[in-house]
């Protein structure tokens, strides 16, 4: 099973990189970009076959390491064969 973790800054947290990208898009002539938020995607190959157990485990990974929950939020997406 594969897991894809999306880590994004929380809504209230200013994203200086997203702001810079937004500015650069405007400079390139892409008008109408009202906001840009930059995050990261982490893909995991898991040995687990039980979907619920895998989801719980990946969430634990997010809480302990993959995201800093002081400033970041995350979502977990599971794909691939399940038992």
């Amino acid at each position, binding site marked *: 099973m594969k897991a894809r973790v999306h880590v994004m800054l929380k809504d*209230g*947290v*200013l994203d*200086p*990189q997203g702001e*810079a990208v937004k500015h650069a898009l405007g400079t390139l002539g892409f008008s109408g970009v009202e906001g840009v938020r930059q995050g990261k995607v982490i893909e995991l190959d898991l040995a687990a076959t039980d979907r619920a157990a895998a989801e719980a485990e990946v969430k634990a990974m997010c809480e*302990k*390491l*993959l995201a*800093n929950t*002081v*400033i970041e939020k995350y979502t977990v997406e599971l794909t691939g064969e399940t038992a």
Partner: protein
Amino acid sequence: MKAAVITFPGSNCDRDLAVAFEKAGADVVRVWHKDADLPRGIDIVGIPGGFSFGDYLRCGAIAAQSPVMRSVADFVHAGGHAIGICNGFQVLTETGLLPGALMRNAGLKFVCKPVDLRVATADSVFTSGWAAGDLVRVPIAHHDGNYTIDAEGLARLRDEDRIAFTYVDNPNGATADIAGVLSGNRRVLGMMPHPERVVEAAQGGTGGAVLFRSLMSAMALA
């Protein structure tokens, strides 16, 4: 005073920190991050600046999971002292031993220059050599020093007088100009500027030596 200075792969201010402790009169033990136990009888742990684990994932995030950090957490929870400078500050926030987080500088650039700090409280073993309001010039060198904390956390820091240093001219977008913060028991300090880089005249300043001397006199009395 006996200090333990930790080295992670990618630390680059560990020797400077050890020398700063030694110049203040401390005995220093160097500790590798894979050592699961801290040396016995130490008074303080120093977590140095640098780029531990190449800043992969987030600055300090991988180092925070190193075996030695479990011992550091135990040491701190038992009332031990610790100082984290630059990357060491990032490691301490990633372990949850200090509140908040250090984000990418608001200007997105690595900033490397001397800055003026205001001593925000003299009520700690780290800052007792100054008076609140004193200015000290200390170098910064970081890409991710933009201290971020939510409104509730900031209110708590202010109410408990736990902001140790603020920038006179904010170089990185840090919330409330914060350059360094103390733990709830005032025994853990995290700061982005590098006091260990200004402990003798040949380095261009001696302002940082005040911090190490303050520590030394506090530990001598303990």
